[in-house]
């Protein structure tokens, strides 16, 4: 069996699995303040780099939720948004491998 497992604080692990490994029953919407503070930048980056806005919002909300300082998130969104778009692409990669069956199963325990 091919398997990757990793362990961390429960709060982060559970949220990580729900957001990026599709364990949440419904898609997690970003917090209102995330949209208020970063929404404009994320929309700009999505248009410029042809990245789905929902991935950008998801990773930004993940960072915000787990205490990454606002100035660091702002820095990731600054300029051409290379920092935040790289993370959004990672989220898209995982989604792709979930959809094509490369990732067969995800469990949290």
């Amino acid at each position, binding site marked *: *069996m*091919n*398997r*990757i*497992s*990793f*362990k*961390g*604080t*429960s709060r*982060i*692990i*559970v949220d*990580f*699995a729900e957001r*990026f*490994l599709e364990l949440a029953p419904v898609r997690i919407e970003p917090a209102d303040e995330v949209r208020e503070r970063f929404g404009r930048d994320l929309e700009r980056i999505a248009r410029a780099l042809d990245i789905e806005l929902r991935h950008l919002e998801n*990773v930004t909300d*993940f*960072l915000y939720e*787990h*205490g*990454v300082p606002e100035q660091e998130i702002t820095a990731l969104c600054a300029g051409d948004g290379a920092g935040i778009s*790289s*993370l959004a692409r*990672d*989220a898209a*990669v*995982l989604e792709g*491998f979930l959809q094509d*069956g*490369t*990732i*067969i*199963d*995800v*469990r*949290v*325990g």
Partner: protein
Amino acid sequence: MSDREHVNHLTGGVEAWNAWRRANPGVRPDLSGSHIRVRGLAGADLRDADMRGTLLPGADLSGADLSGADLSGADLMETDLRGARLSGADLRGANLMGADLRGADLAGADLEDTVLYRTGLEQSEGVCHSLWLRALMEFADGLREVEGEGRGFEFEEVESAVIESNYPAASTSRIEVELSDPISTRAATEILGALNRLYSAVADQDLPGPIIRIGAHDGEGRR
């Protein structure tokens, strides 16, 4: 080259060696480039020793104090380093393939280009973030190696990577991601990379550092 007298002291046994260290606190042992054939070195005081390129394959170094030692380029393949102190040690380019580092203290150790393939790091302390990245790279190297041998890639040699934080069990959870079998190197490394980057983007905020174990394991993380 090593100091022959120092090598002779070490091959005389741990008890005599440690006594010699206590009697000569100002002497930095020079074991560089030597082939240490004695295997029973559990609990040896090898603090700050010059062990560049030293050959110690299969040695029992459990509980040994190697803090601050220069082990760059050393061959530590399949050594028992359980509970060893390796804080501040220079392990650049050292071969730790198959070594058992469970419970070892690696705080501040330099692990650049260290071979960690199939290395047991479970419960090691103070593993830095770069080690996580490095181990993933070694993991990927292992995959390429298998692929290069013409057997196709089926995780035959590297069955899994375990990335763990040294948090109390009560506050931790584990994600297990089951992948297709066989899986391409590209897909495996892309998944590992994506997991690593996304998780570490927030883990840096409150995790002391991940711990990696590479190699076969069962669902409970035991080897």
